């Protein structure tokens, strides 16, 4: 593999931060090539969360005693870290949710129900994960709005040339797209889409679940009105995610969940909502998890988002190069310069489940399935694919083991 003159990050060294790699699978060292589904966790995050629980934990915002103050500082401190991570102008625009899926549902319900009506149009893309496809489809159905999909070309890139045609004269109100496709690795031209959406009077909703862990996001320049991402894909714990939204839009929206924390005052006659961001954070939040996300952000920043992006890009190029040597493997998606560190493929004549099974016996973890993108699978003409995905702790040797494993698959099952 070509090694750059100035290595951007040392994945072998970083790997030592992740305890999961110390435990063999079926007697073999773990080759974890499924970071797109979720990321492994560095010791820093695990230790910090334990320490938080041991020294600083109670419920947030209302306690008068020391532990509650510490917990609140930890929780709100994490919110500030998220703000800085995406370059938002205010922590009022940073809402903690369960994960990207809940964040996208929040917008679909709390914005969509009040802003979509008969005749309006919601547009998603053929690349969407179900979390940014199904909510819009269902809220459109509920409000009488229309629901359409922007298709892709054979390389898995959006048919931006068909935008005007897909929409026609319809009053498009929302355009929902992922920044990075979790199935094909395509990087979508969200800035262009957002500009087009705004021109047509629509809001732009971005699923950044597959992007935020792997490349720098700047909400000041992205052009989006809402951005959703998940902690568990970016070295943080499960159970917490982020919705960033434009303040004016959030102020105008009805709440999503009702209950404690999101109110200012409650009377039988009427209830008044709390200010942002709390208006959208009902009930006890995932306190230690949000704190853990903050620590994960610190960790990622210390490694460097640009270095991570570069590292994955090199791995993607290497993987595509190696897979091209296997005549029985079909790879889907754009060329390496236009994709992130993620490769979907199929082995001729062998079901993706069987491929993944044989690879598991070799200690190699990849995904088999529709990746929560059934419309896309349908477009590709398959029920499922295999997917290998990379992160800051992925080393080229793991890709070599994937390739060796695929040769074995063909031997055993082909």
């Amino acid at each position: 593999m070509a090694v750059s003159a100035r290595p951007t990050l040392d994945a072998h060294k970083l790997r030592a931060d992740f305890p999961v790699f110390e435990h063999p699978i079926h007697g073999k060292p773990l080759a974890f090539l499924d970071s797109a589904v979720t990321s492994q966790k560095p010791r820093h995050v695990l230790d910090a969360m334990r320490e938080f629980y041991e020294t600083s934990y109670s419920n947030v915002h209302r306690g008068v005693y020391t532990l509650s103050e510490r917990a609140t500082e930890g929780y709100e401190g994490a919110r500030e870290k998220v703000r800085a991570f995406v370059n938002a102008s205010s922590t009022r625009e940073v809402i903690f949710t369960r994960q990207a899926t809940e964040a996208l549902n929040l917008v679909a319900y709390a914005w969509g129900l009040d802003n979509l009506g008969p005749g309006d149009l919601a547009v998603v893309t053929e690349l969407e994960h179900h979390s940014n496809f199904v909510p819009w489809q269902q809220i459109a159905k509920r409000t009488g709005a229309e629901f359409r999909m922007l298709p892709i070309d054979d390389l898995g890139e959006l048919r931006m040339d068909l935008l005007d045609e897909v929409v026609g004269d319809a009053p498009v109100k929302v355009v929902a797209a992922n920044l990075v496709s979790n199935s094909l690795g395509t990087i979508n031209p969200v800035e262009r889409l957002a500009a087009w959406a705004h021109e047509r009077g629509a809001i732009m909703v971005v699923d950044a679940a597959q992007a935020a862990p792997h490349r720098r996001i700047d909400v000041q320049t992205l052009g989006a009105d809402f951005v959703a991402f998940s902690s568990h894909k970016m070295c943080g714990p499960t159970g917490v995610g982020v919705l960033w939204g434009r303040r004016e839009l959030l102020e105008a929206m009805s709440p999503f969940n009702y209950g404690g924390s999101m109110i200012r005052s409650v009377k039988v006659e009427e209830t008044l909502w709390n200010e942002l961001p709390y208006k959208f954070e009902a009930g006890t939040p995932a306190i230690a998890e949000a704190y853990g996300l903050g620590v994960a952000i610190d960790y990622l920043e210390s490694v460097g988002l640009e270095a991570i992006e570069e590292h994955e890009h090199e791995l993607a190029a290497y993987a595509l190069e190696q897979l091209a040597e296997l005549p029985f493997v079909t790879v889907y998606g754009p060329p390496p310069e236009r994709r992130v560190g993620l490769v979907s493929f199929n082995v001729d004549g062998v079901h993706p489940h069987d491929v993944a099974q044989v690879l598991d016996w070799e200690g190699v973890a990849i995904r088999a399935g529709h990746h929560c993108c059934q419309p896309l699978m349908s477009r590709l003409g398959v029920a499922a694919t295999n997917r290998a995905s990379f992160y800051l702790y992925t080393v080229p040797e793991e890709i070599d083991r994937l390739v060796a494993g695929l040769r074995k698959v063909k031997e055993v099952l082909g």
Partner: protein
Amino acid sequence: MIEAPDAHAEGKNPLCGDETEIFVKFGSDGATIEDIKFSGRGCAISQAATSMLTEMVKGRHADEVATLSRDDILEEVGIPLTPVRLKCALLGLTTLKLALHKEKGTPLPDGLDDLELD
């Protein structure tokens, strides 16, 4: 496949794309499985398990076959299966039970909601 089968059903697991079509011919008593064939495509587990199933049920009465359990199949398959692969192994049995239910009114199998069946 069997021309003019006495019982027939199709089953598909939409999550992974395993498909199977089962054809049954009864003997002179109209209830004992004299011949059974399947066609379809899918992962190795689904194909192997369905193939084993057809061997298992030849010569057995429809009422008996309708009560075959998942453990009966798993014992035949013989290797430990994770929950994800369980569905693959059981597709054939579920589809066969549906075929028998349609023709003979035998009890419907569990796990119908997960599959696309006809």
